[in-house]
């Protein structure tokens, strides 16, 4: 909201510069967002908070300036307006006083519509309001001055019998002054006569009864409408006006008459004419509200001491009447325009605000430390650190994605997604059930930026529903793609990301988290490897299908992904460490080199070796593998290293030799391996 320095001076003496005034207002909670010198005045751009509708006017801000600066507020005298002979018989019917507690109308006859005088035009233009004609400008000027929205109708366009303030009927329409045609319903309040709807109450007037160059007689409306009705209609129709903004926040009933009288007087002065009718419907019962508050309440909440004398002085300046109720208690009477003060804490805030937040000291509270316990968050942190150490970059992507993006990835997945009721765009239609689509998008984005290899992970919540139950769980997803150069001592080798890289990452992660019971299970040869932890499915590794890569324009490259439920992973985590004594006796290692048919999986082979090897065989690992020149097509060369160890003695060669022989025999017979 914009107001000007000299406009404020109409109501309060200001002895400080515009800049100092802006600072003082800001530090009293009335934030001045901008200050600009313009046409010999200073425009203050003010942001008020939703609890203070009384500040939505020059008058209201001036009242606050008086409080802050300690100057007195200049309440203007109400203008005296003679009512010409009351010839007009005009009826105002309010269907529900709840919807419209007060409606005042003044009929002014014989006005001359014309341009506004320079001073009026200038003030309106300074606050960003276009000058239209004298009558319309005056209603706007009074709105900015007092915060009470007024509306002027062309009286000759209204049925002379009277008007109704009523709910619209579903399907009724109104052509507005400048917001096009509106389709109305019964949640909206309108001003209507017998024939048609004249205005959307409190929001915008109708085109037909608009004041124009030919207008001779006007009806000036000043009213109060129910804030919630205005709010709902405004939201439904998407029309926000200076008027709706104020009605939605609440109007001080005392300014209604004041504003109406000032506007009327100004119209008579600038557009001539005579007031021929003054009518008010609805009576406001205003009983001043009172609050009982402890004198010392501020100190308890703020931690700074404000003398009782000072307390009372501040409250009086704010327009509150104070009376000692007891030694410790004050009874406060709240002025009608402060509709935000109800309880003691509201009073404490006012004291803090005017006394100054700067006057409150900085102290440090005593905090009782909680015994630290290992939380999910710590495991997430450990997981992230491990992945980063393995060369993966963490990404953060949007939890909301489009239905079409998910559609590409959801093939064959039995997942019911959660939909957003009010997305702003198709990019926010659903809550993602998997992080993979977003990661693939990230890979594509980075390829567009000419990256050669992209190693990414994200940890975030994923969402799905089953039989009406919403599920939200933490997922880890990894995407690897492209090739990187690995520098060795005598050469550089190209390393292209594949499923085994991903397997290695997950194995390292499991090792770091102390997850022991996990395995990779090949699912029906379709390139999906399931990760099982403690026997339960926890996630999978797979290659993104070519049709999806084509969509993202990823050519000649594979994208390998993994998704893993962190709840499942963490359930298997053991971070407590147990030391095992280092072996005292030397081990004997026997390597077996052989060639193996491609289609024979090594997983089974290793398991069989372990079983056959018995208790002396401590470990079997693959230490070399090779495909190429010396190996026949359809085979691969493999070396396994078998480490033998006896617990409490030195193992002898003679003990190992027969086991080694049985292992070789096993490889030859069961796995058709050929020794090299």
């Amino acid at each position, binding site marked *: 909201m914009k107001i000007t320095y000299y406009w404020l001076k109409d109501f309060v003496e200001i002895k400080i510069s515009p800049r100092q005034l802006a600072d003082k207002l800001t530090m009293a909670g009335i934030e001045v967002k901008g200050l600009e010198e313009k046409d010999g005045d200073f425009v203050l751009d003010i942001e008020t*908070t939703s609890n203070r509708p009384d500040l939505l006017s020059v008058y209201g801000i001036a009242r606050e300036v008086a409080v802050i600066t300690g100057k007195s507020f200049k309440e203007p005298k109400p203008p005296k307006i003679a009512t010409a002979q009351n010839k007009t018989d005009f009826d105002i019917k309010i269907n529900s006083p709840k919807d419209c507690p007060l409606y005042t109308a003044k009929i002014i006859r014989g006005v001359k519509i014309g341009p506004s005088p320079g001073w009026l035009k200038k003030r309106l233009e300074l606050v960003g309001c276009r000058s239209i004609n004298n009558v319309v400008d005056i209603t706007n000027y009074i709105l900015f001055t007092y915060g009470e929205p007024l509306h002027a109708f062309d009286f000759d366009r209204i049925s002379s019998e009277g008007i109704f303030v009523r709910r619209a009927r579903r399907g009724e329409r109104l052509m507005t002054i400048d917001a096009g045609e509106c389709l109305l319903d019964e949640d909206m309040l309108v001003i209507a006569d017998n024939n048609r709807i004249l205005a959307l109450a409190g929001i915008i007037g109708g085109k037909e009864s608009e004041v124009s160059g030919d207008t001779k007689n006007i009806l000036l409306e000043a009213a109060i409408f129910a804030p919630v009705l205005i709010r709902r209609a405004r939201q439904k129709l998407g029309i926000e006006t200076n008027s709706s903004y104020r009605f939605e926040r609440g109007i001080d009933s005392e300014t209604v008459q004041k504003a109406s009288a000032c506007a009327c007087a100004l119209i008579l002065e600038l557009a001539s004419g005579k007031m021929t009718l003054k009518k008010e419907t609805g009576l406001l019962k205003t009983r001043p509200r009172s609050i009982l508050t402890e004198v010392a309440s501020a100190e308890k909440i703020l931690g700074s001491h404000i003398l009782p004398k000072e307390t009372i002085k501040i409250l009086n300046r704010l327009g509150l009447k104070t009376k000692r109720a007891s030694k410790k208690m004050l009874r406060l009477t709240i002025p009608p325009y402060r509709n935000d003060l109800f309880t003691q804490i509201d009073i404490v805030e006012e004291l803090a605000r005017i006394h100054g937040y700067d006057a409150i000291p900085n102290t440090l*509270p005593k905090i009782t430390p909680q015994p630290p316990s290992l939380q999910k968050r710590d495991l997430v942190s450990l997981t992230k650190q491990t992945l980063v150490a393995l060369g993966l970059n963490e990404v953060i992507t949007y939890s909301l994605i489009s239905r079409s993006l998910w559609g590409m990835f959801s093939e064959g997945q039995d997942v019911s997604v959660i939909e957003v009721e009010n997305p702003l765009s198709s990019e926010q239609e659903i809550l993602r059930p998997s992080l993979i689509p977003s990661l693939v998008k990230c890979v594509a984005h980075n390829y567009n930026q000419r990256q050669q290899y992209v190693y990414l992970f994200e940890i975030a919540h994923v969402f799905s529903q089953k039989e009406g139950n919403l599920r939200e769980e933490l997922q880890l997803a990894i995407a690897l793609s492209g090739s990187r150069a690995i520098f060795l001592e005598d050469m550089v080798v190209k390393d292209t990301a594949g499923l085994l890289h991903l397997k290695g990452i997950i194995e390292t992660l499991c090792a770091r988290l102390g997850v022991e019971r996990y395995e990779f299970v090949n699912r029906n040869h379709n390139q999906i490897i399931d990760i099982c932890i403690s026997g339960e499915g926890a996630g999978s590794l797979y290659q993104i299908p070519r049709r999806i890569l084509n969509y993202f324009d990823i050519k000649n490259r594979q994208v390998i992904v993994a998704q893993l439920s962190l709840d499942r992973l963490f359930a298997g985590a053991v971070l407590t460490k147990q030391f095992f004594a280092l072996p005292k006796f030397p081990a004997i290692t026997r390597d077996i080199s052989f060639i193996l048919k491609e289609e024979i999986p090594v997983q089974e082979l290793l398991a069989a070796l372990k079983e056959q090897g018995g208790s002396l065989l401590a470990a079997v690992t693959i230490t070399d593998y090779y495909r190429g020149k010396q190996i026949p097509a359809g085979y691969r060369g493999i070396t396994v290293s078998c480490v033998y160890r006896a617990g409490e003695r030195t193992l002898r060669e003679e003990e190992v030799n027969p086991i080694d022989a049985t292992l070789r025999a096993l490889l030859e017979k069961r796995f058709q391996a050929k020794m090299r």
Partner: protein
Amino acid sequence: MDIYSIRTQIELEVNQLNSREALEAFRNKYLARKGIISQLTGSIPSLAVEERAAFGKEVNLLKSQILAIIAEKEKTLAAEKPSTPAPGGGIDIGMPGIAQEIGRLHPITQTIDEITSIFVQMGFSVVEGPEIETEYNNFTGLNIPLDHPSRDAFDTFYIKSPAKNRLLLRSHTSPVQIRVMKSRRPPLAIIVPGRVYRPDAVDASHLFMFHQIEGFMVDEGIRFSDLKGVLEVFAKAVFGKEIKMRFRPHFFPFTEPSAEVDISCIICQGRQLSDVLTSQGKRCSVCGGKGWLEILGSGMIHPNVFKHVGYDPTKYTGFAFGMGIERIAMLKYGISDIRLFFENDLRFLRQF
């Protein structure tokens, strides 16, 4: 092997003696125990007696010539710089180092970690909450009426659900206040990082998803001065000891008194303050010439919130604060477009 052809050979070899290694090989070839000179000397007894003296002279002459060549070459080589070591012999430290490249944590994660650790050092504990929330936890319990202008600051994504109670994507991390207070008793000192969602049109400073950190403390005798003290420790830890702070009165439905907290502009330090607001010209682009940067919202927890969770507001008081992580990170790192955080360009991520 005649002395003449050996001389010719030596003449050819002399030009190649450009390194110590070559010179050493040269020396060995001719002067070593089984070198050419000793072979020649060894062949003397097999010569005819009359030839022996003359041949011996020739060999001695040859030997002294070789020694002279070596002595001279040693001088010239000593004057030269040491040569690059032969491949395999030494290390060329100009070659790329060999290491596993590490990845980076996202700058938002790094900022969250930094901020939470400051509060954890002060004794706060970290709690997280779900992103799908009830209307009650997100609004009603926090003293935000459903049909009121105070809700306009909290436009919210609702989700389609058959559940009786409307569900939404939390628009701030404050619902975790309600969750924690409903399940635990004071004293509480809690910090809550997490994702939040608001249907805002996307531009350089707005997104429909971002991160917040919420902090709150509840006990007997907690005062606004404690809030000021705690936040001062935080702001100085993140932005430096030199920064100034100010607490401005504001309105939030869930706190009273409420304050917005500004720090002095980290770019211009508010130096141009006296005249910038009134001149259109050279305004600091970070603070808009105001000299202050808003970093968070805070206040004393509203008694109505305590009533909602069943705490006695006459017994307990508390403070709460909340801040946008992206904003803090943008100020800290000098990033001017919030969308960069979610594009995840590796050239961006690798800078942190």
